[in-house]
């Protein structure tokens, strides 16, 4: 009797599942980066029946490792465009069926056609958000925002400066300061010299947004590099900071949402990505502090005074941005060796 | 209670023969001392009987049972350790009761027997103390009570009194003997103190370099040592060497002393210091062994006195009641003589 009952419920459950097509999808992303907001996943579950489970990574390398070692474990993954070609080349992610994503038509054309996201000749990552790596200043110290990146080397701010402990970012930051193309650095020696000069100015490196906020809150720093999305969040939280895009330019990055080749829930994954680029999702997210959306319709839906409209919506600013391209392992290691030597000399 | 027999036991540690074909038996109810210098194998032998060490060769019997393959915990022995090895975390009563509890004796029975054992060692009132609250002598009594409370077939004592000071040691020797007599247990103990061995034992065994050199009642071994080592290890001995010439021994310097009849081949002779008398005149008896020597030193020690003498470069020692000694000139020539039966023959 009991066995019959169990069997019946199991069949019923299966049946129900196939009708409603309710899947549990697993998303691999940075923690607290939009996809895992409770209101967002709740709304998605309500609309589609699919539930969402998150797993987090702390670096792109780790994300790739997780994809490599856990086939079938993930359905949606956030990949920075500069890593998309590598993931595509390793066969980790599959091409996107844009027909299944209603909101795709609103994505800005220049982003939808991004070379890196279209690695291998087909779209492998749906443009989701973009932003800048530039710097922010402590408004308690500055009456007027500096216009030049040279403020990092200004003796007035000795011991009040911070950059992120990341070889690539440090090198590209110095590339901008030395007027070079961040994706094609020709004079690495100049960068080494520039960074060596910067080192004594530095109070500490920062490793995460959390560090950064605490240092700023404790008044440890005057000038520090930061991501635009993080800056907007910090400002929203009331920290005395202001984001600056200097005349020398800034590093730009683009994040895309991809679907692992090994995912068994491709349809639900497409649905989730669709929801992620929906203007309704984005405007709600922007209230908490979000990077810029790749969806033109979503960006347009923001209020006039929103950070992402004011700063990133300025065409003059956008013109100064150099977008990050993929970096080969060799280059990455050369940068790391140089960065470690600089740090070790301290 | 049981007889213990050790037969042809050999034990090697690496290349070292710690026990080399050792044979000795310990009759039921006796008190036996194992004696020897350090490294002689006496402790190894005791631990082999206990079962901490397994033999390479030979048999050990306790009672009629051969025990070489039986581990220590099944051998029904009682053992007392040099440092007593009292369990620091248990009270006196728990220490003594340990063996009973292991044997699953009922609690009431355990209490009764622990009480009896503690009475026997006169520690009845200390049963709730912890070992660190006891004096050295008390710890020793607890260790003894613990070793005998299980009615073992044999009691093994490893240097039982060495941790005690001199006066306490003498008291404990008497005490140990009393308790052993009272319960009649076969007891084997290891000591490096020859006096202790002679006092306590019904039989002693002397070991040297892993071999059982001699075994027998103390008096017999003392009076008839089978070799120079035994003679000088057990008590003191003045050694005489020379060549046998008819019924006398011609010493290397030409003097001759009478020796027991019938001895043809070469031998070594020994005389105990306490058996020698010193006179200034030459003793007149014909067959009294006598030699001349020169007095080097006279040491007064209460009732007794020790004289150190020199005879052509070899040292002699004489122990005598002080008042029996005549006035002797230091450095002067004297005569040493003894009864013929006190000449100990040591066969070569």
């Amino acid at each position: 009797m009991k066995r019959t009952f169990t069997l019946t419920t199991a069949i019923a459950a299966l049946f129900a599942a196939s009708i409603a097509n309710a899947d549990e999808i697993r998303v691999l992303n940075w923690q607290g980066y939009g996809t895992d907001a409770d209101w967002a996943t709740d709304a998605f579950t309500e609309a589609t029946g699919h539930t969402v489970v998150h797993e987090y990574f702390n670096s792109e390398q780790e994300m790739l490792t997780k994809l490599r070692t856990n086939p079938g474990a993930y359905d949606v993954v956030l990949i920075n465009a500069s890593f998309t070609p590598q993931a595509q080349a390793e066969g980790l992610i599959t091409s996107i069926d844009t027909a299944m994503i209603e909101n795709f038509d609103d994505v800005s054309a220049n982003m939808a056609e991004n070379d890196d996201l279209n690695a291998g000749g087909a779209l492998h990552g749906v443009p989701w958000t973009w932003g800048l790596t530039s710097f922010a200043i402590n408004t308690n110290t500055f009456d007027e925002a500096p216009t030049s990146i040279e403020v990092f080397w200004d003796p007035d701010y000795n011991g009040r400066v911070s950059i992120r402990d990341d070889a690539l970012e440090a090198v590209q930051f110095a590339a901008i300061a030395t007027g070079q193309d961040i994706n094609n650095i020709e004079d690495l020696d100049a960068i080494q010299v520039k960074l060596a000069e910067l080192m004594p100015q530095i109070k500490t490196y920062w490793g995460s947004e959390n560090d950064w906020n605490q240092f700023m809150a404790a008044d440890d720093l005057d000038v520090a590099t930061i991501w635009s999305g993080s800056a907007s969040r910090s400002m929203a939280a009331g920290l005395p900071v202001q984001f600056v895009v200097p005349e020398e330019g800034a590093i730009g990055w683009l994040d895309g949402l991809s679907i692992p080749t090994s995912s068994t829930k491709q349809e639900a994954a497409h649905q989730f990505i669709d929801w992620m680029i929906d203007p309704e999702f984005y405007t709600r997210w922007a209230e908490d502090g979000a990077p810029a959306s790749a969806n033109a319709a979503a960006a347009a839906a923001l209020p006039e005074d929103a950070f992402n409209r004011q700063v990133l919506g300025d065409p003059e600013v956008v013109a100064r941005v150099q977008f990050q391209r993929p970096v080969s392992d060799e280059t990455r290691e050369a940068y790391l060796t140089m960065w470690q030597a600089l740090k070790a000399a301290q | 209670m049981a007889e213990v027999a050790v037969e042809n036991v050999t034990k090697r540690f690496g290349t070292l023969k710690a026990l080399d074909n050792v044979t000795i038996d310990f009759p039921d109810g006796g008190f036996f001392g194992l004696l020897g210098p350090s490294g002689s194998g006496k402790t190894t032998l005791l631990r082999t009987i206990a079962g901490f060490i397994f033999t390479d060769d030979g048999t050990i019997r306790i009672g009629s049972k051969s025990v070489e393959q039986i581990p220590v915990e099944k051998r029904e022995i009682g053992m007392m350790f040099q440092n007593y090895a009292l369990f620091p975390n248990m009270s006196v009563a728990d220490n003594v009761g340990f063996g009973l509890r292991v044997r699953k004796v009922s609690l009431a029975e355990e209490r009764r027997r622990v009480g009896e054992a503690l009475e026997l060692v006169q520690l009845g009132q200390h049963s709730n103390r912890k070992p660190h609250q006891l004096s050295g002598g008390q710890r020793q009594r607890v260790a003894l009570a613990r070793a005998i409370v299980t009615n073992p077939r044999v009691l093994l004592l490893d240097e039982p009194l060495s941790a005690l000071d001199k006066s306490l040691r003498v008291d404990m020797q008497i005490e140990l003997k009393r308790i052993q007599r009272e319960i009649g247990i076969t007891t084997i103990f290891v000591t490096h103190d020859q006096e202790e061995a002679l006092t306590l034992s019904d039989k002693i065994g002397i070991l040297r370099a892993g071999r059982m050199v001699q075994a027998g009642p103390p008096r017999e071994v003392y009076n008839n040592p089978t070799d120079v080592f035994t003679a000088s290890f057990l008590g003191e001995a003045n050694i005489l060497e020379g060549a046998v010439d008819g019924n006398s021994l011609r010493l290397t310097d030409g003097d001759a002393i009478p020796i027991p009849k019938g001895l043809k081949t070469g031998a070594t002779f020994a005389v105990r210091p306490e058996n020698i008398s010193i006179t200034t005149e030459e003793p007149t008896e014909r067959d009294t062994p006598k030699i001349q020597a020169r007095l080097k030193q006279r040491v007064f020690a209460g009732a007794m006195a020790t004289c150190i003498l020199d005879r052509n470069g070899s040292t002699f020692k004489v122990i005598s009641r002080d008042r029996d000694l005549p006035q002797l000139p230091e450095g002067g020539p004297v005569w040493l003589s003894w009864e013929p039966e006190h000449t100990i023959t040591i066969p070569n």
Partner: protein
Amino acid sequence: MSNMLVKQDRLRIFGLLSPAYLWLTVAIFLPLSAMFYFSFLSEVPFGDAEWNFTTDNYRAFFETPTYAILLWKSIKLGLMVTLTSVLIGFPCAYVLAKTIQGRSREALFLLVILPFWSNSLVRIFSWAIVLRGNGVLDRTLNAILPFELDINLMFSTPAIVIGLVHSYLPYVILTAYLALQAIDDSLIDAARSMGAGKITILRRIILPLSLPGLLAGAVLIFVPVVGSFMEPRILGGRVGTYYGTVIEDQFVAVFNWPLGAALSFILLAVVLVILALASPILRKAQT
């Protein structure tokens, strides 16, 4: 003690040791062997990555001076932290073992370990709050002291040492405590009765007898501190780059596990050599 290896003993040794070592083998030794293997590869053999055997990763250590400089810096840090912990922890253990009596001792014993049960990162951040300029320490001292002080220990080597000593101090207190507690008080009394002064007793009796515990504690501190990277980074700021940092970078920042593994095994080798060199000296000190 019987040092015979009869069959029963063999079985017993096997029975007692095999669960622990089997566990370690499956969960640590085999995985680390795989890592060791990786350390001789040019690439991590994932997917269709092309790789070949090479000793380049080990050679990199000798060709790039950064690594040796940082390893030396890490060893110095390890020694400094170990020494500081031993110096402040030993008296503490002594008081706990010999002065405090009864139940309060057990309570204190537990209180020493309890901070370990909090998250290390939370602890480090708490230290940051304490040590930084205008932080808890600065404010407290300025509230108590009549004169103005400007204390900002944050982002300095002392901050790293404070954080690490805090993290590892319980090891040495507890191992030293366990050894000290086992010393029979009568030994100390006996020495005193023979006219030995406090220093002599400490040097000739207490230190030698508690050395095994002290050493165990020192090793448990020194070994992980040499490879640490979290505390130095957060508390040391600009000066917080150590050997552990470069290893971590190889795993996290660039996907160069072979080099990271090679650097780790060099660290392990150096640590073992240091322990091996130190052991005869320490053993001599013990007798």
